């Protein structure tokens, strides 16, 4: 009931502002996480600057893309942030438009990796994360992704499920490590499948891992850098591995809806989000690692982010086309070899 009241009063408010002034509105579609911080650091300052109103839609990317597809004829959302692979999927479904980067004053400040992630000019990266292995340095040694699957270690490892964002990148690096790296990840999945009874769990929520590490249920797990902070507070000898095959990860990008009536405003908003000031603010609150290379943060902050030219240059990301074309095959291969 309370929710209902809130929703209806929110509707009334929206109606009122729309009626009182012919105010410009921009509808954005974003991930549901850290919205309080985004509101404070990005949305409200932008509203003040542009004299416009932001309408924020949140949800996971599957839901949000499905919604964009359903509203294709008359788009509701003006700009969206999605994963690199989802941006390509939106491109293929003809949902998004080329981004005129000449209108983004901060474009040249971005790391090269973020400038055109899919090589088609349809998206701009705004944050990324490294994925590597967090491990108990007193119990084991991790120099390679293959160390996760060794006889001594496998029974102390939580491996990401293929359905999570960390799953395919981790499998991709296992493939690199065993020297059998193919886009279908077949050999890597088979290698994990061979150890499926030893591996403690195939995790779905990384938030669970801190507790498992604390209970010594696990000694190692591949994680995204954004989950690292929780482990550092355990008071255990825990390290972030730098495997010889390198680190992997993922990137989130901004896209522009095809047929949006507010494209200029959407571009202004993107430019604002990519500015050194805003990217620094987001980095300092540990919300997102910066894609803008002018961002400078203290070593303590940097420790909890994916930060710095060197780190970024060495990230091995799965190309979006590979991810998109193989998703279904990965899942069925995984279900056959690992799922039981």
């Amino acid at each position, binding site marked *: 009931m309370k929710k209902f009241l809130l929703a209806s009063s929110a509707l009334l408010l929206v109606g009122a502002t729309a009626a009182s002034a012919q105010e410009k509105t921009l509808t954005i579609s974003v991930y549901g996480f850290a919205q309080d911080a985004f509101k404070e650091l990005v949305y409200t300052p932008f509203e003040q600057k542009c004299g416009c109103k932001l309408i924020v839609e949140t949800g996971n990317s599957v839901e949000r893309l499905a919604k964009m597809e359903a509203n294709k004829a008359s788009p509701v959302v003006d700009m969206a942030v999605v994963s690199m692979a989802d941006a390509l999927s939106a491109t293929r479904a003809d949902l998004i438009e080329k981004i005129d980067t000449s209108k983004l004053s901060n474009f040249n400040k971005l790391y090269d990796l973020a400038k055109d992630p899919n090589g088609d000019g349809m998206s701009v990266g705004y944050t990324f994360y490294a994925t590597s292995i967090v491990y108990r340095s007193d119990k084991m040694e991790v120099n390679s992704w293959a160390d996760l699957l060794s006889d001594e270690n496998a029974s102390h490892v939580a491996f990401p499920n293929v359905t999570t964002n960390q799953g395919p990148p981790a499998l991709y690096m296992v493939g690199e490590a065993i020297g059998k790296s193919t886009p279908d990840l077949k050999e890597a999945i088979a290698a994990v499948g061979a150890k499926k009874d030893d591996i403690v769990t195939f995790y779905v929520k990384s938030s669970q891992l801190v507790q498992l590490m604390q209970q010594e*249920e696990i000694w190692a797990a591949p994680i995204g850098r954004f989950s690292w902070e929780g482990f550092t507070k355990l008071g255990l000898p825990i390290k972030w591995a730098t495997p010889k095959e390198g680190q992997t990860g993922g990137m989130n990008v901004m896209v522009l809806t095809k047929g949006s009536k507010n494209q200029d405003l959407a571009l202004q908003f993107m430019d604002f989000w990519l500015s050194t000031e805003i990217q620094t603010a987001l980095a300092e609150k540990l919300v997102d690692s910066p894609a803008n290379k002018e961002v400078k943060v203290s070593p303590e902050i940097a420790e909890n982010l994916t930060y710095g030219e060197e780190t970024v240059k060495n990230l091995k990301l799965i190309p979006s086309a590979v991810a998109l074309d193989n998703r279904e095959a990965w899942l069925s291969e995984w279900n056959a070899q690992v799922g039981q």
Partner: protein
Amino acid sequence: MFQNRAEALALALPAAVFAAIVFLAPVVILLAEGFRSADSWSLSAYTAFFSDPLNRTVFLRTFRLGLMVTVVSAVIGYAAAFAIVNLTPRNKGQMIGLVVLPLMISSVARTYAWIVILGRTGIVNQALQLVGLSDEPIRFLFTETAVFIGLLQLFLPLMILSLISALENMPKDAIPAARVLGANWFQVFFKVILPLTKEGLVIGGTLVFTGSLTAYITPAILGGSKVLMLETLLYQRVTVANDFVAASVIAFILIVMSFAANLLLKRLATARNKR
């Protein structure tokens, strides 16, 4: 109570309409998804579901665990309920309070507690090592055993409470009478107690079995993706694959299993009556 049926029906109408609109209609629409293929009605979604070996394993595991939890909770439940009804009224009240207590705690909290208890450094493993039953920590978490223990603890109170009320309604002198007539305890249970309390067993059994089938939190936390059950598979199909057809198939299977269990238990109860 009412002068005529119409009056009673009129009073029931608002609730009935409400249930039809917010419950029945959405369920029917959702389940209908599973029986559609292109433009016609068909069972193809069901044959596709059961042709996948993973789905068959998950289906059988869900059924097996539900059955095991029901049977074990009935065995423990009878013992506990029997002990409780024979206590003095004051002690009885306290004991029933203890049985009900876990039901007042969120199942998330209770399930998380099991992660600590069953962990490698948890109390169970410490005890096993202390008494020398095991040299190194045994892995309980993310196994069927953990899910079984979690579900049993979750639903046992429902079985005990159903059996307590059934045992209390049983004539007090039935057991002494049977004993006097020379029945051993085995015969007393199967020939006297069980037939007289089967209603409670049917209610408890249905609650526990359907509860185990449809519990989501316990298998998700204690089993994880290594011990998929129908309900965790359902979640995966919707959130990962956006596959509402398979999800509606699973939902329908779960509903059918629940109804079937209830009918079967009732049938068993009446079958014993006739004898």
